[in-house]
């Protein structure tokens, strides 16, 4: 398969579209946790119970369409090779937790991959809906109507006082996590995250890095999400998150301008060195690759680098993960082999830009 075709298949169609403020907010997501009223939660359920959950999706939603979400595919974990599951995790369509449920775990995915419904995760149902850029309200509205569509066939576990009942007390109430993925290189370079993160925490929001298995926010990509799910409406939760994200966008823009004004040539040097590493290295580890990709994306956003598409960060952060590298290579790779493949794939991808 050519690299272009591989990318076309690998990158979720919705991610190729532009959204609001997409120079800083890469994507917005709403996740809703739901359960069946009369079936025990996954933690104590018998396999037969969870099979019943799966049957409801098999009978009512497989190959159905709802609005712009066409022809839902129902994929069972049992049918997938480990590397295929890993790819779904890297695309954020399923959680690592679901990937481990080989008996009754499944995922319902729309053709454009904008909606995925994890079945028999910690909760019976976890709806995930993505939008490119900063579009939390759109995501909430569509997630909610999609939720209504599922509810036509499912008796949800719901209580007047406690709201949607979930397996974990941290999700009860709305069952909702709203989140945005943000690229904040200038706030990291100017060491402002140390000051900003505690301030965001005070507002009941959680900040974390999402890429990388170890300890840091690889690629300067952060996820901001709500911590509280009980006692606030979905709309208020989204409003609160939105206002914080708006301030972060402004602070990141200010920081970018300040760096450009105060140390423009140093920044230009940093950005082009990183471009050089990506364009010429033969072995590259994911940590270095994500640092360089973040620099190059910043260079594109600031107009220092031209003729490279700004989707390169989103694309290559996903494509250079171990699962994708092995799918592209069509075989299991050792970590050393992956570092070679990663360097090759990035070089090829940058060459595509020149064609």
């Amino acid at each position: 398969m050519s690299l272009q075709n591989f990318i076309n298949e690998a990158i979720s169609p919705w991610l190729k579209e532009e959204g609001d403020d997409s120079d800083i907010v890469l994507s917005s997501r709403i996740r809703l946790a739901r359960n069946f009223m009369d079936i025990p939660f996954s933690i104590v359920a018998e396999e037969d119970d969870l099979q019943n959950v799966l049957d409801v999706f098999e009978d009512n939603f497989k190959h159905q369409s709802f609005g712009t979400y066409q022809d839902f595919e129902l994929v069972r974990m049992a049918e997938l090779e480990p590397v295929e599951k890993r790819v779904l995790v890297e695309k954020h369509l399923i959680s690592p937790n679901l990937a481990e449920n080989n008996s009754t775990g499944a995922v319902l995915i729309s053709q454009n991959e904008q909606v995925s419904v994890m079945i028999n995760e910690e909760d019976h149902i976890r709806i995930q809906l993505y939008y490119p850029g900063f579009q939390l309200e759109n995501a909430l509205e569509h997630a909610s109507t999609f939720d209504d569509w599922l509810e036509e066939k499912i008796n949800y576990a719901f209580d007047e006082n406690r709201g949607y009942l979930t397996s974990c007390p941290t999700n009860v109430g709305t069952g909702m996590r709203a989140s945005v993925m943000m690229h904040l290189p200038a706030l990291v370079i100017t060491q402002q995250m140390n000051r900003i993160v505690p301030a965001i925490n005070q507002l009941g929001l959680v900040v974390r890095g999402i890429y990388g298995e170890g300890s840091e926010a690889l690629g300067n990509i952060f996820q901001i999400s709500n911590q509280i799910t009980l006692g606030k409406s979905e709309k208020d939760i989204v409003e609160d998150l939105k206002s914080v994200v708006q301030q972060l966008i402004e602070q990141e823009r200010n920081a970018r301008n300040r760096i450009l004004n105060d140390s423009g040539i140093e920044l230009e040097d940093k950005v082009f060195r990183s471009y050089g590493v990506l364009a010429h290295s033969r072995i590259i580890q994911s940590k270095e690759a994500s640092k360089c990709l973040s620099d190059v994306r910043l260079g594109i956003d600031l107009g220092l680098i031209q003729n490279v598409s700004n989707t390169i960060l989103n694309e290559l952060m996903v494509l250079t993960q171990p699962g994708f590298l092995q799918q592209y290579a069509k075989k299991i790779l050792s970590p050393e082999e992956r570092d070679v493949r990663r360097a090759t794939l990035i070089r090829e991808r940058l060459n595509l830009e020149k064609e």
Partner: protein
Amino acid sequence: MECQECEKRSATLHFTQVINGHKTEVHLCEYCAQEKGYMNNGEHNFSLHSLLSGLFNFDSAPSLSGSQSTSYNPKNSLQCEKCEMTYHEFTKTGKFGCANCYTTFNEHLHPIFRRVHSGNTKHDGKIPKRAGDAIHLRKTINEHKVKLKELIQNEEFEEAAKARDQIRELEKKLRNDRDGDS
């Protein structure tokens, strides 16, 4: 920012923990967050397990003088009749077994929800459409019942008879809706 636990790796999980109204910031690296049970396999759905068990120890200790072990606490033997999970198991896993567990353990849940959700204990969001119909219906029935009582007290028996018929009608509708669902 450094992880407050290992003081080596940089912190990537940041959140505020509210304990008895006191806010504490928590900054952990992914590894320590996993270790301490704050996270589930890297999904950001942190279970706050240690936070919960901390609370359980706290509120079970003063209830007994002498024997401090939580297993002697009578509420630990509370058991959900649907899924058979005991309160003790719930405190160990930090997860409910089924929807009915919420009812069974109801009176012990307030402090837990308050701690996890910044003092909130009551839902204020979306109501599902079909389950919601029944909720609205029940609300109307209760209002009619209050009215019926008043009418009887005021000896307005003709009006009372009308109200009673209305209640029967609504209750029938509620029963039918429920049967229609299953």
